[in-house]
């Protein structure tokens, strides 16, 4: 492994063009992740046509680097503006934004930089050491029933955070799942809920939905506060956490690396669920559960470590099985196809140099987050000085472009603004925006894997649940769901007793 890694490093830094592409990917991913309104996906969508002119290793490496640094960059907007750069940064905003309001933005961003670097580097090392055995394990043990079970567990976790009650948490998730049913059904290709609009046959793209629910609704909320004279500008602070402060959270970091890596390995799941589960586990094991959502540094640490730990792991199903784990890894499949290649087990034998250049680049990209990230962060924090009424139109324009670029449809811009309006109304009523977004992202994956799983077991639920990983995840999801419902019913009884 070390020999291959050194060979990959030599190939990466031995060619000036490859170095330039690497540096462009690192800085571009960080910047697009950290600019509110656009994301690493916007950059990736714009760069995709240009990648046809690159060498295969350069093309795949560029997107892998953008994935690593963009996942970190999205944390900055989540913390500073309550606008996650990508869905995987949504749980970061739960505690990161309250910290900004308390004048502790520097601590939150500093922790995000360090933990993203640690999570990503650990994941890159694990990926290098274990891609082939893990891929083989995944082939043997992970099938559609397990993926559906993990989706169910993830949605149960998502419903337990964000909404005012477990009911509103679930209503948010179910709304997301309902939105995900728009477009062709994943089994028979039958058009559903397109309301006579041909553009809707392809479904609701999740980038406009995410931008609408997160970025646009946040602008509306802040605009409302300005209109009602309740707007408080976030406080600028560039004091990063000390090493000793972060050392207290070592167990949370290790736990989140494991959670993130496990979620990342599973095809179709990716970093979003990893971040939610990392955050959910932090809450579950904490002795101070009440402080989460109110500016607990552990919330930022858990979410950011887990989502970056999933970046390396997400390359395992992509490279070993040819299955993308999320939107950006799906774009990487297109890069392979531009060069008449298919990701899958044969890549390891036909193009080992490509694999090791990508592995080395991801490792160094994660390490560079620590150094470039800290410098960049000091600059980005100055964004807080820009008055809101000048920043808001910029964010809205960038978000419009970000949602249009993906498919070239004006409909997507409309969807984004509609999602923003709906998100604005739902947030005011105590619903969970991350829950809706996770429902949209996981809806199609869940349905497809449920259908395939049922076909596999000939519609026999006993056989379905006799698969151990599947059973464990479904029971864990049911316990999470049951606990939430029990607590809601208990609070009903308490209220009745008080009366």
């Amino acid at each position: 492994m070390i020999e291959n890694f050194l060979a990959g490093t030599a190939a990466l830094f031995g060619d000036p063009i490859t170095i330039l592409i690497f540096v462009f990917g690192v800085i571009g991913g960080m910047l697009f992740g950290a600019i509110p309104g656009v994301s690493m996906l916007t950059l990736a969508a714009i760069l995709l046509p240009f990648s046809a002119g690159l060498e295969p290793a350069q093309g795949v490496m560029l997107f892998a680097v953008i994935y690593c640094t963009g996942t970190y960059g999205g944390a900055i907007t989540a913390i500073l503006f309550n606008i996650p750069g990508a869905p995987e940064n949504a749980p970061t905003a739960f505690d990161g934004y309250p910290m900004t309001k308390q004048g502790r933005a520097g601590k939150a961003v500093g922790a995000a930089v360090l933990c993203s670097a640690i999570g990503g580097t650990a994941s890159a090392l694990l990926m290098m050491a274990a891609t082939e055995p893990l891929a083989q394990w995944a082939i043997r043990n992970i099938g559609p029933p397990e993926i559906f079970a993990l989706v169910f567990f993830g949605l149960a976790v998502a419903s337990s955070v964000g909404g005012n009650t477990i009911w509103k948490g679930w209503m948010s998730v179910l709304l997301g799942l309902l939105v995900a049913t728009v477009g062709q059904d994943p089994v028979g290709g039958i058009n559903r809920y397109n309301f006579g609009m041909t553009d809707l046959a392809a479904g609701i793209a999740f980038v406009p939905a995410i931008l609408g629910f997160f970025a646009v609704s946040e602008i509306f909320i802040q605009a409302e506060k300005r209109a009602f004279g309740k707007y408080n500008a976030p406080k600028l602070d560039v004091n990063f956490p000390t090493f000793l402060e972060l050392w207290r959270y070592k167990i949370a970091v290790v736990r989140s690396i494991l959670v993130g890596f496990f979620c990342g390995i599973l095809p179709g799941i990716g970093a979003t669920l990893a971040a939610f589960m990392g955050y959910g586990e932090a809450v579950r094991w904490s002795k101070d559960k009440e402080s989460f959502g109110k500016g607990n540094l552990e919330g930022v640490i858990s979410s950011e470590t887990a989502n970056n730990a999933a970046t390396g792991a997400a390359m395992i199903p992509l490279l070993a099985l040819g299955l993308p784990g999320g939107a950006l890894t799906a774009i990487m499949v297109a890069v392979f196809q531009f060069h008449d290649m298919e990701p899958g087990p044969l890549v390891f034998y036909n193009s080992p140099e490509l694999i090791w250049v990508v592995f080395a680049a991801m490792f160094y990209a994660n390490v560079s987050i620590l150094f470039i990230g800290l410098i960049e962060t000091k600059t980005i924090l100055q964004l807080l000085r820009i008055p809101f009424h000048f920043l808001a139109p910029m964010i809205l324009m960038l978000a419009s472009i970000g949602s249009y670029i993906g498919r070239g449809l004006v409909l997507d811009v409309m969807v984004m603004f509609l999602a923003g309006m709906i998100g604005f109304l739902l947030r005011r009523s105590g619903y969970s925006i991350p829950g809706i977004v996770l429902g949209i992202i996981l809806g199609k994956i869940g349905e497809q894997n449920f259908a395939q799983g049922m076909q596999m077991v000939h519609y026999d639920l006993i056989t379905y649940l006799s698969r151990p990983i599947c059973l464990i995840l479904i029971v864990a999801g049911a316990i999470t769901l049951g606990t939430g419902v029990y607590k809601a019913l208990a609070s009903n009884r308490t209220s009745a007793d008080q009366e």
Partner: protein
Amino acid sequence: MGKLNTSHLIEAVAWVAIAALFFIYSFEFNQKIEIYKFGATAWPRSILLMLMLVIAGNLFYQRANGSTPQPGRVGISEDDLDDAEKPLSSYLNIGSFLFLPLIFAWSLKPVGFYAATPVFTALVIVLLGERRPRWIIGITLFIYAIIIGLFMIVLNAPLPQGTVSPFYDFSAFMLRMNNQLQNMF
């Protein structure tokens, strides 16, 4: 009725209406799939069934607790819970701010991005309370320059050009300028 109020009931009716709309529309694609016994409607209808159960649970909760958040919930924003009375002008302001982006999105096809952007940007700045003309024009031009510089000149991103003259002609002019600029390098 317990602690249920009118807004809780309106909220529940809105959710039931959404569920009913989606259920009625599901008959439009109620077809069998050869390879899948449950067909195309099973998944959305299961979601709708669960949604109805959860709506009932929510109403039951609100009857006992009103709008009070459930104890121990994580990630609730304190900003979301403010329902105090506000002046009418503020509602008109926020109402215009909510609908302006939809008008912008609708105008993208006929007017195009290049012509619609400065107008939309300036209106947003005005609606957010800026009244100094120099600042409005200056910031609008600054944002326009950044967006055109980054997406048109550096990244060559394809943006809507519009279909109606003279907006289409303006977009064509911008793209010609960009081509000439690119050819210089």
